[in-house]
């Protein structure tokens, strides 16, 4: 391979819409690595790319769907999960991935997030958490740590943030993991596991926004922020998730936190209600109901 070829090709070119590159992300942003890691997992999963859709909302992470060579849907702010729900339920043969940011999925889309997890709709949700609204200029949001500065918290943030992993687990997600974008191999394995697992699977990726969140909180450039991840990351798969909140102290508890089995919305709908029964109006048989309740 000549030097020129090395410069011209990226190992993931086949899965990217090259005609949409260069991307919009700032230098030092973690999103490129998040996308690259996701694509590696996607390729390894051997999922049929023709039957795979990726859905985003609005924001910096919301641009991911548009760079990936799948069926890409860039929807409205906060709404990728209900759009994906319609897509998946209307054609259960599709693999549907939601890739969006913390503001999109957890603030304006928070209600959709908890309900999709509760229903256990068969979706893989990847949330890049950079603690801020990047696209609009670094405003505070539901993940901004207490005391952090942002464009709308000039005196420091005085709202307590959501702990996304705890929220996902409490809402009923069957798989919950959190990694920083520095942990590319562990992150890739988690995404791969999430893609191959039935039900509502959730991967949170902690990722730097040096241009806004980093600058306003004097955290240094992208490289410095990533070096801090290296220093502050604690792997603890068995942590009590309520103790895994993220604050300004820099400690980041990561791991594969939740991995359980529960029937999906589609399984319940088709297997227990829509399958041929002598009397369609009959209730779900007692043993069947017990099975479902046991899992729930």
């Amino acid at each position, binding site marked *: 391979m000549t030097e020129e070829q090395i410069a011209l090709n990226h190992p993931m070119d086949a899965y990217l*819409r090259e*005609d*949409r590159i260069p991307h919009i992300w700032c230098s030092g942003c973690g999103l490129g690595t998040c996308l690259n890691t996701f694509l590696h997992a996607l390729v390894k999963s051997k999922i049929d790319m*023709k*039957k795979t*859709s990726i*859905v985003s909302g609005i924001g910096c992470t919301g641009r991911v769907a*548009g760079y990936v*060579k*799948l*069926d*890409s*849907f*860039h*929807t*409205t702010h906060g*709404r990728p999960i*209900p*759009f*994906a*729900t*319609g*897509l*998946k*339920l*209307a*054609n259960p*043969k*599709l693999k549907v991935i939601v890739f969006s940011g913390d503001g999109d999925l957890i603030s304006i889309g928070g*209600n*959709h997030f908890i*309900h999709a997890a509760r229903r256990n709709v068969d979706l893989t949700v990847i949330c890049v958490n950079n603690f801020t609204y990047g696209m609009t200029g670094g405003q505070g949001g539901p993940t901004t740590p207490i005391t952090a500065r942002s464009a709308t918290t000039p005196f420091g943030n005085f709202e307590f943030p959501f702990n996304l992993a705890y929220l996902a687990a409490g809402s009923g997600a069957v798989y919950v993991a959190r990694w920083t974008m520095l942990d590319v191999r562990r992150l890739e394995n988690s995404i791969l596991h999430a893609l191959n697992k039935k039900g509502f699977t959730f991967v949170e990726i902690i990722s730097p926004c040096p241009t806004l969140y980093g600058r306003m909180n004097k955290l240094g450039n992208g490289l410095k922020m990533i070096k801090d991840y290296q220093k502050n990351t604690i792997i603890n798969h068995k942590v009590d998730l309520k103790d895994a909140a993220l604050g300004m102290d820099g400690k980041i508890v990561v791991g594969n936190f939740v991995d359980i089995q529960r029937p999906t*919305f589609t399984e319940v*709908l088709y297997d227990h*209600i*829509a399958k041929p029964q002598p009397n*369609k*109006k009959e209730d779900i048989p007692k043993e069947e109901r017990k099975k479902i309740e046991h899992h729930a």
Partner: protein
Amino acid sequence: MLEVEKPVLTGSHFMNGDNACAEGALAAGCRFFAGYPITPATEVTERMSERLPLVGGVYIQMEDEIASMIAILGASWAGKRSMTATSGPGFSLMMENMGLGIMIETPCVLVNVQRGGPSTGLPTLVGQGDMMQARWGSHGPYEIIALCPSSPQEMFDLTIKAFNLSEEFRTPVLVMADEVVGHMSEKVVIPSPEKIKIHPRLKTKEKPEKYLPFKPNKNLVPPMANAGEGYHIHITGLTHDEKGYPVINAKTQQKLVKRLLDKIRLNRDKIIILEEDNVEGADVVVVSYGISARTAVLPIQQARKEGTKVGLLRLVTVWPFPEERIKALAKKVKAIVVPELNQGQISLVVERCAAGNAKVISVPHMGGETHDPKEILAAIKQAVKK
């Protein structure tokens, strides 16, 4: 007892409008419904929850109407005919993603069984106050198709029509019903499946490498590829080019949005349905829609008995508005009377189209009940006075 396995319940039924709407959807091939309970549209949702799973479809109760509206867009892109049903407060929440549906040209049907507003208003009582919201409620320039049923039979027929128009023009279509039409029970005749005209989805014949998802045909409508068919489509609510890629400039905005408007404006003759009774030679014409058009029948008969030449023009399609017909009519008649269960929404449009050629008399009503026929009769009498 419901024959639950059949998608089309051929025969004569005594049925309320909401149930007839659900049956119309099923007969039109609807196999995905996302909704949220709200009076007076709940019966549509309940009927779908019972019927859809047994004909191989999916019913889902979403967390709110925002989610319901966008879930039906997702389902449509998966290749299913999809619908939601709501009333005023839910309709407000649906405006956001009705706009997305228009922008990404997604066939689907949105039913609004109108009640009295604003806000929570009169949940159980009739209104027609959302007619302008239907036209202008989502942000930015758009055109919409809205049908107004006047009976349970039309709740069935026009729901099928709405699905067909949504596929033909690749856009969300509204069924703007009202509480009285939704809740009244009447005879509803459901034809056999082979007699129901279904407009198929306009699918692309191009190969994936060559396909441009927003390149229009002669009708200004781009043929579709669904998700999962190997086309790797790119769909965005941002202003986009024919490839579907975002292009944020004035030129692309002009090209795209003009086409979105024109595909409805220039095809309005194919879309608009009007019902006219004794309009030729009339001095006064009552222009109305939905339940108000039915309330107008009695006073019109009374006025005719008393010697006034009065006709009825019923707007089955309210949007796009039949501007040419009203313009022409205004030149022939002395006055146009517009009864509606709001403070004069469609009457404003009639007035604009009449352009001073005929007197336009609004017969407003705050909602909560239908007009007293005497109010309409009084307006007709006032109209013929010099």
